[in-house]
């Protein structure tokens, strides 16, 4: 998933990075096709070049040799709400048919089955980033037809569409999973399968989500991770195998 997420980034993108796989993906992209990626962390590090894989989003390695440090008020007001962010990375315990994300609760809010950490900066990233890449392994439990709780808005949902809600950012544009990639359809914003990884049967993917998944007419081919990408990931970027 890290390799596939890395390939979603273009050189020069200003990326709002979360910890874990997104961080790994950004560093892989920087080491390969996107050397001018600008990594911004909600903690305030701008243009970070961490020389170790950060365990937390506020790791000291993100500051040392970074291009700048901003207060969190500036990060959220001037960088994110100020529409300076090209790509935001998000995860979520649930992703629904329109890309709404739930990282708050499974079950009802007042009496949850599982209490998750909550929004953090996810809601505003989903509102403001020009495009949002979601990274999440595919399973029926985590891809229901509708999320239990709308933490971060997708392309459409019970409150309306992004257009009717006047949301400035593009919302989730790519959902990178362990078997393929989903993307919202141009017509109605519903996620459809746009790519599968080598050896994966598209029909087998359909059963893994909680709604009748459409398969895009133009299913993209996804080349497998190259030897260079794998070596970089395993030996250089995550030598302690924290995330792989």
């Amino acid at each position: 998933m890290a390799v596939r997420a890395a390939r979603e980034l273009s050189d020069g993108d200003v990326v709002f990075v979360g910890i874990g796989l997104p961080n790994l993906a950004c560093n892989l992209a920087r080491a390969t096709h996107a050397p001018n990626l600008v990594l911004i962390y909600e903690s305030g590090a701008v243009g970070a070049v961490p020389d170790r894989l950060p365990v937390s989003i506020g790791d000291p390695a993100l500051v040392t040799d970074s291009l700048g440090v901003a207060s969190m008020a500036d990060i959220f007001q001037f960088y994110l709400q100020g529409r300076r962010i090209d790509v935001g990375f998000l995860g979520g315990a649930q992703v629904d048919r329109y890309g709404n994300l739930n990282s708050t609760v499974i079950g009802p809010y007042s009496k949850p089955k599982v209490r998750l950490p909550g929004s953090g900066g996810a809601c505003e990233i989903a509102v403001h980033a020009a495009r949002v890449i979601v990274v999440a392994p595919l399973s029926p439990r985590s891809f229901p037809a509708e999320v239990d709780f709308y933490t971060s808005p997708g392309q459409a949902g019970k409150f309306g569409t992004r257009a009717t809600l006047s949301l400035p950012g593009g919302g989730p544009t790519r959902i990178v999973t362990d078997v393929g990639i989903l993307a919202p359809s141009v017509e109605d914003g519903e996620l459809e399968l746009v790519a599968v990884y080598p050896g994966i049967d598209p029909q087998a993917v359909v059963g893994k989500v909680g709604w009748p998944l459409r398969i895009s007419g133009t299913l993209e081919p996804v080349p497998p991770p190259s030897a260079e990408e794998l070596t970089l990931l395993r030996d250089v970027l995550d030598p302690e195998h924290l995330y792989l």
Partner: protein
Amino acid sequence: MDMREAISRFVRDGDTLVIEGFTHLICFAAAHEIIRQQRRDLTLARLTPDLIYDQLIAAGCAKKLIFSWAGNPGVGSLHGMRRAVEQGEPQPLALEEYSHFGLVARLSAGAAKLPFWPLRDYRGSDLPAVNPLIRSVECPYTKEQLATVPALNPDVTVVHAQRADSNGNAQIWGLYGVQKEAAFAASRVIVVVEEIVPEPVIRADPNRTLIPGFIVDAVVCEPWGAHPSYAQGYYDRDNAFYVGWDAVSREANGLEAWLNEWVYGVGSRAEYVEKLGEDVVARLSAKPRISEGVNYGF
């Protein structure tokens, strides 16, 4: 002033307390002294409750938590907090939930002494449905609706900084978090530092000053006061501690035993650091990466 006196004089039962620091400069030393002095019925506010509020909650100091992301970063749940919410142990804990931007905005409003702060957020989210304090306002120019959050004005804010002079003029480098906003929003401010430096050190580089001394009520010198969090240029984050906290805190008696040993069982931060041991201190001590000076002359 030592930590005992600072907490004793400036933190009261029932207070709304903010100990901020986003990963960086989280003042565990102040939290531990609050636990030792058995403050009760605190309303705790912080973007990321982190282990520091997990400990305060497990020690029975808190009745309410205002937050935006409750987890052990990169590790998992905050078990102490969850026991309080789910089982009312050691006492029930009310939750008031925002996103990061929402809580940053609440502190910004508090610091600016405005009753609210506008933000473009929450449309398409369930958060306003579960938190009636998230409201909206109509722009007097464009007529569009914007979200609002109310000001948060803590009774006390504790700011950990790398250094300050004896009047509390405090300098921070590395991540700022919302320390400045939290300090200006508060009625009382406690500044805790790694070092007290002579005033000329502060005056030699005034652009590094984040908190002016005249808003500060107490200045406490407490080296390693942020461990297991970190202080850029002083010591690294103790990631192993954060990972290990999951096992320590998973059961109530494990967490209690930890508090008995590491909080009630020591009289001060100095004793805690001694107990931590030379190996940990050596492992975490910062290597030098000294910046160049700039010219303030004219």
